[in-house]
Structure formats: structure tokens, C-alpha cells
């Protein structure tokens, strides 16, 4: 028996729901951050709220992902994707690598936002804005690839 394989379904659903929160908060966050580049700093409190929600959501998504990975590795990847659809494993591997780097970026993003005021220290947007963009790329890639792989084969019998 593989670690937590009996709970794979409910955990995968929880993974998905937390991802909804994550992608919603990060996308809204990006829309506000883009306005910073236009010199509009009117929604900083809301943006800071999105950052905190995103960090929590990402942490939950990450922890659940770590927990269900062994069952996925054996029942789906090893028995189906690797031999039948190796390109799908390629998509998944990038998702995992970017997800790991994204965790470090998220922590930095949160600490950076906590340490500066966008309206007063505009030069620091040179790191803050690209980080926000990269995190959105990572999150959206994870959502699209995760849903696509689940459509290809989401469970085993």
C-alpha cells in the first residue's frame, strides 16, 4: 500500500479547491500590481490582503500536493503516464519544478511586500512586479496542466 492512497480522491479535491482560492487571489493581485506601474496606488490594502491569502492558499496546495504525490507517482505516473503518455509526465515534471521554486518565490514575495510601501518606494517594483508575474505564470501553468492531466486520467481502480 502506498502512502495515503485511500485518501487520494478527497485530498485531490481539497488540492483543487485550495487552488481555486490561490488562482483567484493571485490573478486579482496581479491586476492591482499592474496598476502600480501606471502610478495608481489606491488599492494597496486589498492587494496586501491578496498576498496573504495567496501565501496561505499556496502553502495548503503545496502540502496537499506533497502528501498525494506518492500515490500519484505509483498508480498514475508509473503505471499509466510514463509508458503510455510520456509527454504528459514532461508537463507534470515542469509543474513540480516550478511549484518548488514558486514556494520560495511566494515566501519572498510575502516578506518583500511586508517590508515596503509600493507608493513610496517605486524602485522596488522592479523586483516585486516581475515576481508577481512569474508567480501567476507558475500558478496558471499548475492549474491548466493539473486539470488536463486529471482529465486524461484522474484516478485508478
Amino acid at each position, binding site marked *: 500500500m*502506498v*502512502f495515503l492512497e485511500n485518501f487520494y480522491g478527497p485530498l485531490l479535491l481539497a488540492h483543487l479547491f485550495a487552488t481555486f482560492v490561490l488562482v483567484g487571489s493571485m490573478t486579482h493581485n496581479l491586476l492591482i500590481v499592474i496598476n502600480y506601474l501606471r502610478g495608481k496606488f489606491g488599492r494597496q490594502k486589498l492587494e496586501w490582503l491578496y498576498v496573504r491569502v495567496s501565501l496561505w492558499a499556496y502553502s495548503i496546495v503545496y502540502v496537499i500536493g*506533497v502528501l498525494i*504525490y*506518492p*500515490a500519484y*507517482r*505509483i498508480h498514475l*505516473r*508509473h503505471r499509466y503516464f510514463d509508458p503510455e503518455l*510520456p*509527454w504528459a*509526465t*514532461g*508537463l507534470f*515534471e*515542469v509543474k*513540480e*519544478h*516550478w511549484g*518548488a*521554486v514558486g*514556494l*520560495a*518565490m511566494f515566501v*519572498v514575495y510575502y*516578506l*518583500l511586500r511586508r*517590508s*515596503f510601501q509600493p507608493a513610496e*518606494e517605486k*524602485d*522596488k*517594483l*522592479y*523586483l*516585486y512586479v*516581475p*515576481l508577481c508575474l*512569474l508567480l501567476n505564470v*507558475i500558478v496558471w501553468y499548475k492549474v491548466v496542466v493539473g486539470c488536463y492531466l486529471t482529465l486524461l486520467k484522474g484516478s485508478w481502480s
Partner: protein
Amino acid sequence: MLPYASERVVVVKKSDAAYVLSAVFVALTSLFYCCTMWFHITLPRYYPLEHAWKWVNEKGVPSQGWYGMQAFAFLAAGIGTLIAHFGLKRVVSPEANLKPAQIRICGAIATFVAVVCMGYMLHYEFSRWGVFTAIGL
């Protein structure tokens, strides 16, 4: 009430230090993560069927190297950032503030390194698993 000038300097300095260290950590994490691929560094792997951790990559047996790669990248980047932190403390005067150009360059370098490393990860896995071939590239 406005803080004293000396307090304002301290506040700005802390913020600048946080900014520089953030940039260093992002760049180093991406870089060290890629190093595990470039140099094929042997790291602990989890074998789900045996519920065991091993320091070898046994061919034909499903295992997970992802946990080890992350741990290596985070630890190495953490140590690197710590060294940068103490280095900054020694080299930079406590009264000094970063110039706007330095802040911009620092952010741009960190972003550049992160983007290149993410691109490398994508290229590495897409080539390895035939994704480029599957989409006709």
C-alpha cells in the same frame, strides 16, 4: 508624529536589506534547483513502494527525487542568503541607502536568473519526455 531622522534611516535600511536578500534568495533558489539537473547531483530519493529513503537512484524502480531537490535548493539558497546577509552587514555602512539604480539592477538580475532557470527546467523536461516532439517542434 514624525520619527527622528535616525529612526527613518533605520527603517529604510531594513527595507533595503530585505529587498536585497529577497532578490538573492530568489536567484539562488532557482540556480541551485537547476544545479541538481545540470550536475546530476545525487540526493536522497523516496521509494513509495518500499516506504524507504535511499541515497541512490535505482533504475526501473519508481522513486521520487523531487523532495530531495527542493530540500537541497532551499538549504543551499538559505546558506547563500545568510552569507550575503553577513557580507552586507560588514561591507555596507549602516547609514548607507541603496541608490535607485542599484535597487533596479538588483531586481532585474534576480528576475533574469529566475526566468532563465525556469526556462531551463522547462526545456530539460520537455526534451527528456518528448513534449517538443509531441507538439511537432
